[in-house]
């Protein structure tokens, strides 16, 4: 981590790497002026988006799954960038689960993306050079 440019960049290959990244990100964000709500949303994005890639992004070689994550502090925003070479998946376009009327109807999947869409300032997806690129902006 560089305190000068307030940026953190890591390659995540496992849940253990994700836990380390979440700890480091929290430490970075708590050291500067970032609201508790923004820290919550950053952690939600890290957990939900990285976990998705590790679980589903590399179906033919799950043990080779890797996602690059960058956490960047800007004046009014925290900007998260996720890059992976797994199978194409656009989380922004993914249909949110329907609002359930009963517990039996309540979906187990798709909730993380739904929660993130409601919390983030912006949420964008690009497909470039066979890579998935997801950029999440969170108001500080």
């Amino acid at each position: 981590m560089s305190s000068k440019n307030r940026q953190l960049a890591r390659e995540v290959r496992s849940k253990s790497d994700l836990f380390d990244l979440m700890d480091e990100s929290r430490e970075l964000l708590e050291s500067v002026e970032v609201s508790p709500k923004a820290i919550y949303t950053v952690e939600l994005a890290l957990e939900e988006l990285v976990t998705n890639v590790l679980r589903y992004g590399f179906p033919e070689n799950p043990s080779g799954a890797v996602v690059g994550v960058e956490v960047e502090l800007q004046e009014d925003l925290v900007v998260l960038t996720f890059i992976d070479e797994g199978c194409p998946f656009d989380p922004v376009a993914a249909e949110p689960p329907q609002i359930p009327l009963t517990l039996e109807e309540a979906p187990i999947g798709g909730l993380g993306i739904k929660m993130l869409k409601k919390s983030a300032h912006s949420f964008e997806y690009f497909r470039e050079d066979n890579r998935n690129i997801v950029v999440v902006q969170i108001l500080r």
Partner: protein
Amino acid sequence: MELRLNDQQTAYRHLTLVGRLDTRGVDSVEIKFNALIGPKAKNVLLDFAEVSFLSSMGIRMLLTMARVCSRNGGVMVVLNPQPLVHEAMQHASLDDLIPVVTSIAEAEQAFPA
């Protein structure tokens, strides 16, 4: 993540969760959570006052147990979630399915006899 069973003498299970209910937290607590509540659980009170983070993995754990309670004719109730955790529940459209209460008396009123 910590999990404590508060009182086995009541007509409902009363558990307290402490920490972060994310992938790491669920990994550390889910087996104990399921064991303490069990497949015959009917009414469950989960004290959430000291839960500081809830992700979709935590919600999956809650939904699974809430369904068990429902199938047994009961209900699982969450007591005093922190504001950001409560908001996460609302964003997941969970608050209508798992009642949120602010006191034990309110929880006891929510439990079917």
